[in-house]
């Protein structure tokens, strides 16, 4: 045993003593909930095995040294990454390249249950599942991603109609289907994409997708064109990077139209109806507005504009429901905190550290810090990034960008493309292996 181990053990012994000493006092004196010192083996249930949920599940097992039981509920059979999925649409990656099985989490002792979480009983502290028995928890972590809002697109009121217009905004079957539609499109055709008003999942992704499809057209279908209909007044992320790529790599391929709010869709003619014009295309791609996934909208938790969930940035606990934490794209981030996979991974670790501390009677970190690094590919090899570092501000009780930190690539290059690939493989392993 080295000195480091000895120190760790002393700390643990001291903590164990403090736990015992404080058990009788904790519930009243420190405000700790009685259940947190009750269970011999505390139970955490995590819903959603994406960038937020899978990371939280793994790190709670890792940081509790297996002392907390973790059950991860996921309806899909394997993880398919949204980051890099635009390259599948562009044709330079296959869906298998961005798919990772959940098997690796067994090594950490995470129990993965393939099911759907339908409801929560916060008084009984149970999660009700679609097929299996309800799961009891001491703390619950929700990382369900986003659901789409079709309220303002009248023709897409039914699930059947919705299925006929691809979003491809959750990587998986629609990613493959959009690729197939582009391959089937005759040369000389038009691809039209609609981008909703911010906030939406992954701010640079619509513009990266435009690059990937332009890359495909400029190498394989040179007479084809792209119309980008953006409900926002300008490109929402990495504007200089994308503008430079569109000018230098894809001149003449992309027609970008800002302030283009979608009014409706004509399914029969594949027409996007806007305020002042109608755009008919061979392949249409509508990214609908988004809100927190259904399970995180229960119990009043979507308390930011009825769309996203406000959380305490020290623990990611819902401001509405004690004992329930929310991560990733479902939360209302602090200003300048994007809805990205990387951000969800970082939030998950702050949450995991807090959950382990709370269930062990230890102190929660009062100065958490998270970083975001997000690469976008402009073709099959070149990428650029945006990065930022956010620290907790105890006065404003929010995450603020550390002054002077963060920045962008001025232009995309192959070196950053190699790093983007390294990022993807390391973060997938950080979540799932």
């Amino acid at each position, binding site marked *: 045993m080295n000195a480091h181990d000895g120190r760790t053990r002393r700390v643990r012994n001291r903590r164990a003593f403090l736990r015992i000493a404080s058990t009788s006092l904790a519930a009243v004196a420190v405000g700790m909930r009685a259940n947190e010192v009750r269970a011999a083996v505390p139970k955490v249930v995590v819903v959603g095995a994406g960038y937020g949920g899978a990371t939280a599940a793994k790190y709670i097992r890792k940081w509790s040294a297996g002392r907390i039981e973790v059950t991860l509920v996921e309806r899909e059979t394997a993880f398919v990454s949204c980051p890099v999925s635009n390259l599948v649409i562009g044709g330079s990656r296959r869906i298998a390249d961005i798919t990772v099985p959940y098997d690796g989490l067994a090594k950490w002792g995470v129990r993965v249950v393939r099911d759907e979480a339908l409801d929560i009983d916060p008084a009984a502290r149970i999660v009700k599942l679609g097929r299996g028995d309800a799961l009891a928890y001491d703390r619950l972590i929700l990382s369900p991603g986003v659901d789409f809002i079709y309220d303002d697109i009248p023709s897409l009121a039914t699930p059947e109609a919705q299925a006929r217009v691809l979003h491809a905004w959750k990587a998986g079957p629609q990613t493959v289907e959009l690729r197939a539609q582009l391959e089937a499109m005759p040369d000389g055709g038009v691809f039209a994409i609609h981008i909703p008003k911010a906030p939406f999942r992954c701010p640079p992704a619509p513009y990266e997708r435009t690059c990937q499809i332009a890359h495909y057209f400029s190498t394989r279908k040179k007479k084809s064109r792209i119309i980008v209909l953006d409900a926002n007044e300008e490109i929402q992320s990495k504007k200089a990077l994308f503008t430079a790529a569109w000018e230098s790599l894809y001149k003449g391929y992309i027609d970008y139209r800002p302030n283009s709010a979608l009014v409706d869709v004509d399914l029969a003619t594949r027409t996007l109806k806007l305020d002042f014009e109608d755009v008919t295309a061979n392949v249409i791609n509508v990214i609908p507005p988004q809100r927190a996934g259904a399970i995180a909208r229960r119990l009043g938790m979507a308390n930011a504009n009825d769309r996203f969930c406000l959380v305490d940035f020290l623990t990611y606990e819902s401001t509405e429901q004690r004992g329930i934490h929310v991560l990733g794209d479902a939360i209302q981030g602090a200003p300048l905190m994007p809805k990205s996979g990387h951000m969800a991974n970082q939030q998950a670790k702050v949450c995991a550290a807090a959950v382990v501390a709370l269930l062990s009677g230890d102190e929660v970190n009062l100065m958490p810090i998270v970083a975001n690094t997000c690469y976008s590919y402009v073709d099959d090899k070149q990428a650029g990034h945006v990065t930022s570092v956010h620290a907790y501000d105890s006065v404003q009780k929010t995450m603020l960008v550390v002054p002077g930190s963060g920045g962008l690539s001025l232009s995309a290059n192959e070196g950053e493309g190699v790093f983007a690939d390294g990022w993807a493989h*390391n973060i997938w392993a950080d979540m799932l292996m």
Partner: protein
Amino acid sequence: MDGAMTSYFLRCGAAVAAVCISTTFAFAADVTPYANLGRDIASNCAACHGTDGRSRGAIPALAGQDAQSIVRSMKEFREGRRAATVMQQIAKGYTDAQIEAAAAYFAAQAKQ
């Protein structure tokens, strides 16, 4: 400003400073350092550099690296003395104490 006024402002300033100092000391005495600072900061790095700094691809591994070498690199990135793509921008987000704690954590990890 006459002498009396100057003296008054100096006295007020001294009083405010005294309160600030006592508050600072009281704060420092009450707050024990967060025990897992190095582990948690290092986990920020893990998204790109791999869990515990064990990287699978082109991004450099940090597990088992010399702590002083990691600290030196981070300070060079932060001060713009070492070329980088993202690291100059990220290094500016962390304090010396955070960098040193994370470096010590990585140094204590097995390489693979």
